[in-house]
């Protein structure tokens, strides 16, 4: 699929989601279970992307000191936990990766 088509479809769907209940007001309510479930979308989706990036090297599991991405990722997780700051987390992770690749 062409990237522009992906973006247009993605944009259209995003718009329809935002428009949904504003348009349907008075005709339909969000069921309680769905309302609850929506809160877990961010942790679930983001972890599903992050885990393979950290744990897999060339498609296979690599939990060792050689896996610099995993180590740098753990540093970033700690920094994110204590600072809650996006920019500082990214910089700390990049510096950690650079140093690990240099020394290990």
């Amino acid at each position, binding site marked *: *699929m062409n*990237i*522009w088509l*992906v*973006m*247009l479809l*993605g*944009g259209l*769907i*995003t*718009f329809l*989601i*935002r*428009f*949904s*209940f*504003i*348009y349907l*007001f*008075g005709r339909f*309510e*969000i069921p309680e*279970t769905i*309302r*609850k*479930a*929506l*809160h*877990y*979308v*961010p*942790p*679930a*989706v*983001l*972890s*599903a*992307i*992050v*885990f*393979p*990036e950290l744990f*897999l090297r060339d*498609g296979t*599991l690599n939990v060792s000191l050689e896996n610099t*991405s995993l180590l*740098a*990722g753990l540093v*970033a*997780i700690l920094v*994110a*936990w204590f600072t*809650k700051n*996006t*920019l500082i*987390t*990214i910089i700390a*992770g*990049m510096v950690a*990766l650079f140093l690990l690749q240099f020394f290990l």
Partner: protein
Amino acid sequence: MSEKIKNFLAGARAEIPLLIGVFPFGMIYGALALNAGLSKAAAQGMSATVFAGSAQFITAQLVHENTPGFVIVLTIAVVNLRHMLYSASLAPYIASLSTRWKALLSYLLTDEAYAPTIIHYEKQGITPYAHWFWLGAGFTLWFNWQVSTALGIFLGTAIPESWSLDFALPLTFIAMVVPVLKNQPAIAAALSAGVVALIAYSLPYRLGLILAALVGIAAGTLLEGRKSSGRMLSPKGML
């Protein structure tokens, strides 16, 4: 000054503190999207069409991994589903507006526009021009998102390729997900999704991602249901 303009400017003003976080975020997006292999036009175009920070970062990452288009579109849909909550929450306040107004305000309904707008409505109730506040907040965010994306794209072209910037995308996701892990159900959602993503990684079309997300969402929801009846434990979606 007319009431419309007054409300518009009040909305714009309420948005300013949020821009401190949004502006660098937009710049990082612009630079990383370019690095992930999107053209300059596509990177900027996505800020106008999709207009949703986390979904745009994720799309850049998926493009970088040569993910099939339909999986990317599906992922964007899952990631942005939370906006249904905002839509439902603000719907009663603009029930009497024309469909054209409703469509315009819906397009501008991001996390960062929702926050000041719902606070305004809860304080002031429905006033004749309150929707101009929403427009002011939404437009201010939209404008800054486009400008910061452009700046990021501009800076991105100056960053040498040897810097292995592709790792900055997963780092961005770490920065987004960690603060959300405030309670057991959220942590369970993250861990179960992560583990399933590893196990299901070799599924075709990267469908493992969608499967992992659904398992994580289910795990969090089930755990919350068991732990509490009625009490809100959920993390606030601040993405």
